[in-house]
């Protein structure tokens, strides 16, 4: 059950990435690019989450999970502040 939630988190974030970047390719709206890049990092974070908690439960990759997510959120914030106003 828990594993299913982790897998679904990974899959949905991946789907968000694909849809947002596809939207950017179609419309060239910069906000979609920044959101898409944000979700690339969030998807990586979710993959690390699955590897950390399901595949290798002995290891603690929490810092890597949070760091990759922070890169994503930071990218989006950068875009929102400097590019999309």
């Amino acid at each position, binding site marked *: 059950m828990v594993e299913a939630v982790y897998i679904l988190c990974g899959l*949905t974030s991946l789907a*968000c990435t694909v849809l947002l970047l596809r939207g950017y390719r179609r419309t060239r709206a910069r906000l979609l690019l920044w959101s898409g890049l944000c979700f690339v990092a969030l998807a990586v974070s979710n993959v690390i989450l699955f590897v950390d908690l399901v595949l290798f439960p002995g290891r603690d990759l929490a810092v890597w999970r*949070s760091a990759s997510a922070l890169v994503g959120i930071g990218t989006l914030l950068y875009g929102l502040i400097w590019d999309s106003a």
Partner: protein
Amino acid sequence: MVLKAMLNGALVMGCLACALFFVRFWRASRDRLFAFFALAFLGMGFNWLALALLEVDDERRHFVYVLRLISFLLILYAIWDKNRVGRGKVS
């Protein structure tokens, strides 16, 4: 441990800031897409807040990820909703 807490705190703050930006865009354009994005980032912010506050062994920890899943599903719904409305306008 301190680094983890700091990263989680930064994530909460970052998500809330993104949510506020999307609320501003929504107020300016009245585009539902931005409202959904704001809600999703608010959910993600709460997700990381809960993860920062709960102990590592806490059993409820797993349920917090359901909140993250709901946030991602909200984004997917927002994109689908936007595409549907867009198509409606064209035809």
